[in-house]
C-alpha cells in the first residue's frame, strides 16, 4: 500500500487490517497472520511446515494479494496477459 498508493504507515496498516478483517495489532503477530494468510491464500513461509505445497504460494499468492488489497500487481497482470489472455 505504501509502494502503490503512497500511503503513510498508519493509514496503510488500517487499510490492510480492514481488508483482512483483523486488528492493526494482529498485522505484526506471526501467529494470527499465518492463519489469516493461509485462509486468504496470501502465501507464507514455504519451509518449516508453515504451509502445504498444495496451498497458494509466491506467484499464486500474489494473485490473491492483488484481489484482497484491491491493487494492481504488475507481475500478476503480466502473467494474466501472457498466460490467460
Amino acid at each position, binding site marked *: 500500500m505504501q509502494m502503490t498508493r503512497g500511503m503513510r504507515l498508519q493509514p496503510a496498516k488500517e487499510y490492510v487490517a480492514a481488508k483482512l478483517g483483523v486488528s492493526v495489532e494482529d498485522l505484526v*503477530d*506471526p*501467529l494470527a497472520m*499465518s492463519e489469516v494468510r493461509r485462509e486468504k491464500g496470501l502465501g507464507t*513461509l514455504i*519451509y*518449516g*511446515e*508453515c504451509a502445504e505445497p498444495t496451498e497458494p504460494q509466491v506467484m499464486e499468492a500474489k494473485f490473491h494479494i492483488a484481489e484482497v488489497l484491491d491493487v494492481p500487481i504488475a507481475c500478476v497482470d503480466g502473467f494474466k496477459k501472457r498466460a490467460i489472455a
Partner: protein
Amino acid sequence: MGDGSLTDMTRSELKAEIEAGTEAAAKRAKLPELTQDELDHILDIFASPSRFSAVDIGDEVILSTDGTGSQDFASRVTDQQAFEQYLGADTLELYHHDYSFKAVKTDLGHEQTVMRLAQLVTTIPLQYGAMPDMGRYTKPDGPIPNWSELLPLGRFEEAFAAQEEAVPEVTNDIVFVTEGMVDAGADAIDLDTAGAAGDADFLASLRAIEIIRKKFPDLGVQIGMASETVLGMHGKLEYDGHRLAGMWPLQQMKMAEKAGATLFGPAINVNTGKTVAWNTARTLTIVKPCMAEAKIPIHLNVGMGVGGVPMAIMPPIDAVSRASRAAVDILRLDGL
C-alpha cells in the same frame, strides 16, 4: 502463552506465573526452586512491553543448531553459507530431510558429497546431524515387532525383546553414518532428539557415542535430548549401572559424559496452556542442577516447543528472545 498466542498480564500475574513454574518443576523433579534473585531477574525480563530482549554485552554464548538451512530454496551448501555469513551461527549442521540415521544410511554417498563440498566453502565448525529414531526400526516400516502395539496387548516380554533387538541396529547405523561423515571431513556428529522412543533409544545413542569416541578421539559428539525425562518404554535398561528410565537432565548429562559426548543438550517440554514465563521458570529449575556438575558444555534446546519457546510454527521473536535471554542469564549456559 506456550502455544504462542499473545495475551496481556499484569506484573503481579507474571510474578505468580514464574513462582508457580519453578514450584511445579521443583516438585516434579525433586529439585530446589530458583532463588529469589533469579525469580526477580526472570520477572524483569518478562514484565516488559519491549518487542525484544537480549543478554548483556559480553555474556553471549555459542549457538549450535540442529539443522541449519531451510532445504527449500537454494542448495544445502548455500544453506550452510547463509547460516555462516548472514545468520551468525557459531556451528553449522548439515542434515537430510529425513532426519534419521536409518534413512541416511542408504544415501550416505550423496550426503558425504554435500559435506565435502560444504567443508570447502565454510570456515566455522560443520557437523552432521540426525535422530537415532528407534521407532523407525519397527513394523510397519522396519523389521522389528512394534512395541507400541505389543505393550497395550500386555505382551511385555515381546515388547522388551523387540526394543533390545533394535538397540544394536540403531547403534550400528549411527556409527556407520558417523564413519562416513568423518571420511568426508565433518567436524562433529549430532545425535538429535535422543531418547525420543524411550530408554532403549537413549541406550542405543550412548552405546554409539562410546564407539564413536573410541574410533575418533577428536570428533565432536553432540547429544541433544528429546524430552525432560527418559521415558521408560522398556523400563529396565541400564547404562553404567544406572537405570535409564525416569532420568532427569542431570543424570542424562552424566550418562552422556560417561559415554564420551563433548556437548550435551537438555530438552524441557513446553506446556502450551501455560505462559512462556511459567515455562521458562520451570525449564530453568530443571536444568539448573546440570550446570554446576557439567564437565562438558551444556547447550539447552530452545527450539519450537522446548526450553520455553512457544509451540508455534513461527515462534514470535518477543517470546524467543525472552526465553533465550533468561536461560543464558540464569543458567550461565555454554550455548543454545
